[in-house]
Each structure stands twice: as C-alpha cells, then as structure tokens.
C-alpha cells in the first residue's frame, strides 16, 4: 500500500548563502495492508522528515513515494488533496484547527469532508471522544483551550474518524496515561485488522513491540551516518 524507492531530500537555505543540506538519501520502504511498520533512529535521524514526505508535506528531491496508485513525489496538488481526503491519514503531534470550532466538529470534519451525513459523522466523533476519555461537557468547546494531553487525544480521534487505508502516526502515545495509551493501541490494532497500512513513530518501546510488525532504522538513510 505504501512503497518508497530511492527517496532523497535536501533543504536549500536561500537566505543563508544558498546552503544545501542533504537530509535523506536512498530511503526505501514497503508497507502492506494490515501491516504496521515503525520508523526508528535517534532524534534528528529523519523519522518525522520521512513521514512528512510520505504525506506530501515535504517535497522529495528524487525517488518514488507510492501510496496506493498515487506517486506522492510527482502528484499534483489536486491529486494530493484527493489522496488525503480518501486514502492517507496523518496524526501529527500538534493539533491545528480553526479557533472556536467545537471539538465534536473538529473530530467529525474528515467525515464531513467525505460527504458523510452530519448525524452519523457527529455520532462517530462522539464515540471516539468517549473512548479517548474526553468528557462530554468539553465536546462543544474548542480544543484550543484544552491541555496538551487532551489536544493530543482530540487529534487522534480526528485521525481515526475515517478508516484510511494508509495511516501515518507520529508519536500517538506520547504523554498519555496508561488507560488512554491502551485505547490508542487498540485503535491501531483495529485499524490494522481493518486492512490499514500504517507507518508509525513510537518512542514508547513496549507500544512499538505490541503493534508494529517490523522496524526500519532511518539512520541508514541519513547522509553521513550510514
């Protein structure tokens, strides 16, 4: 479902003398449906960079990044928008939302964007929020006022609202207590059982061992490290 071949990435800093910084080289990866692959390597090795390239958030300098039948490295913005709406989900570490929009709407939004009925979308959102222990009295408030841990759970609920065939998870269990961590791991297992191909970054080692089928050390793709 997700296939990377010989992917590289450089940053060119035009305002700092045009310095060119190679950050990734020869990256390859294959994730089948129902499989979860962990990206490992120490901080700065390029785990998040690779994940952002798969999402089309960072441009690849070369190589192929196939998600389903779309090459993210060569796709038009229109194809990418369609891919992100239907196929490729991403749970980032930070919640970014329009201020003052109620939490329930924030979580339901991916479903509404897909044209699901409003009632059904809100119900699904409510189910996820309840599972992630966000008290119902907060659902009509904007998540921008929530604590860091609550925001992260809202972000996770939003990421799992639609059953994306391909899913990227950036530290989904960081800063969660034991009970919520368990819920998130269950959500990941359910997504796998539903046939999702997942790429994840988990610093939490036992979580990684529980849900991931394989590990890929991205240090092997870091120029000057391998």
């Amino acid at each position, binding site marked *: 479902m997700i296939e990377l071949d010989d992917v590289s990435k450089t*940053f060119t800093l035009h305002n700092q003398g045009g310095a060119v910084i190679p950050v990734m080289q020869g990256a390859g990866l294959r994730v089948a449906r129902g499989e979860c692959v962990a990206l490992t390597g120490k901080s700065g090795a390029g785990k998040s960079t690779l994940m*952002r390239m798969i999402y089309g*958030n960072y441009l690849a300098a070369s190589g192929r990044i196939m998600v389903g039948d779309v090459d993210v490295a060569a796709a038009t*913005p229109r194809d990418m*928008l369609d891919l992100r709406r239907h196929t490729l989900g991403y749970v980032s570490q930070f919640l970014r939302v329009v201020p*003052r929009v109620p939490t329930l709407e924030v979580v339901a939004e991916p479903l*509404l964007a897909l044209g699901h009925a409003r009632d059904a979308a809100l119900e699904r959102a409510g189910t996820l929020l309840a599972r992630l222990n966000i008290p119902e009295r907060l659902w009509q408030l904007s998540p921008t006022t929530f604590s860091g841990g609550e925001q992260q759970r809202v972000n996770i609920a939003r990421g799992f609202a639609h059953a994306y065939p391909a899913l990227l998870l950036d530290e989904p269990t960081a800063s969660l207590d034991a009970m919520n961590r368990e819920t998130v791991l269950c959500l990941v297992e359910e997504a796998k059982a539903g046939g999702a191909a997942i790429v994840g970054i988990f610093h939490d080692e036992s979580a990684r061992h529980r849900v991931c089928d394989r590990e890929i050390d991205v240090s092997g793709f870091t120029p000057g490290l391998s």
Partner: protein
Amino acid sequence: MTPLLQVRGITKFYGARLGCRDVGFDLYPGEVMGIVGESGSGKTTLLGCLAGQIAPDAGEVLFDTRADGPRDTLTMSEPERRMLSRTDWAFVHQHARDGLRMGVSAGGNVGERLMAVGARHYGEIRGQAADWLGRVEIPDDRIDDRPTAFSGGMQQRLQIARNLVTGPRLVFMDEPTGGLDVSVQARLLDLLRGLVREMGLSAIIVTHDLAVVRLLADRLMVMKDGHVVESGLTDQVLDDPQHGYTQLLVSSVLQV
C-alpha cells in the same frame, strides 16, 4: 472533471510598471486557493483581472459556465460578464463598505442581490434574507438596521451573506479578515470554511496573513514583484518552502 476556472498567461501593466505577469493555474470545484505576497506584489491586481474588474493586457480566464461550458470571461460581452458576477461569482471586499450599500437596510442589502437575478416576491426575498442573516449570525432584530450601525465584523458577515445568497460557484475574496479583531477573524474563518464545504464553493483568497491561508486554503500561490514564485499544497509551501522569498516570508512570521 473540468476545472471551474482555467487561467492562462494573465499579464497586466500600469504604463511601464508591472502589475502581474504570465500568471496561470487551474481551479477545480470545491477547491480553495490562497494567494499571498507582500503589498505591491500584484495579488490584488491579479484578483481584479480574474474577477473581471481590471482588463489585463494579455491572457485568458476560462470559466466553466452552466450553459455553455468553459468560456473566456475576458472576451465576453459586458452584460454577460455582469450577469456572471451577479449569479455564479461573488466578490468579498476587504472593506465591507466597498461591497455593501451603506444606505440600505441589512435585509435590503441581501435582498437586492436576489432582485438583481429576477426575484420579485417580497415575502420570499425577505424570508431568504432573514435565513442568510441567521446563517452569518446576525440577529433577527437587526434586519431593518443599516450597515452603518453594525460593527466591522458584522458588516463583513453581512457582505458575505449578500454575496452568497444567490448560490455562487466561485468566490473572490480580498483580505476578508483584514482589519478585524482576532476573535472576530476566527469566527469568520469558521463561517467561511463551513460554507465552502456545505455549498461546494470554490474560492480564491488574497491575503498577507499566512495563518489565515493555512486554515482556509487547500492550495497556495506566492507572488513577488508581479510574478508567481512558488505554488503548491498550502502546508507543503509553508512547511517546506522552496523559493528564497517564501522562505523569508515564512521565517518572518511572529510566533504567538
């Protein structure tokens, strides 16, 4: 799928001075495109050319009309273009007073656009006007007040109601949240996002506020000195800018 708008080679000079040069893009139904750049970069000139308010020196703007498919709006007759701007197009100005009739009541402002497309039944017009005022959160009891008695944020919401009442397919916006308090801005952004999704609108938004485009626009074009220097997915352009000017623009934003 046919693009709603196909723009090719739009160029406009003011005498010897360049407004914008060789701008082209496709916009599909339901897409929101942001255009950013500093003052004088040509973004407002471009918007004026696209919306038929400024005649460019070269280029074409093909709009997918309901009746005849894609047609160049620049070579259309003036009455045809006016009809488009009253029906399928909407234009939200930065200053609400440029888009409103200040001497006419709020209900009249919304109703006027309906009358321009042939509505004549007073009760129906007033009913639709009231419905739209509700959608933009203007209280019922303000329907007979003039916009001069409204706050800046309310005027801006009234302008949006006036523009959207005829069910346009393409909305041009020039700094729609400029000059508003941040709390009012947030409410307006939420309103616009909801309308774009529910009505399947396409929109082109000119702004210098990168936070606004990040939340509102799917795609982004960056202009400098009349040229498009970079374009792509909004988050990609903002998080991994390729052009030196965009890098400078992104790194200059104050963090809160």
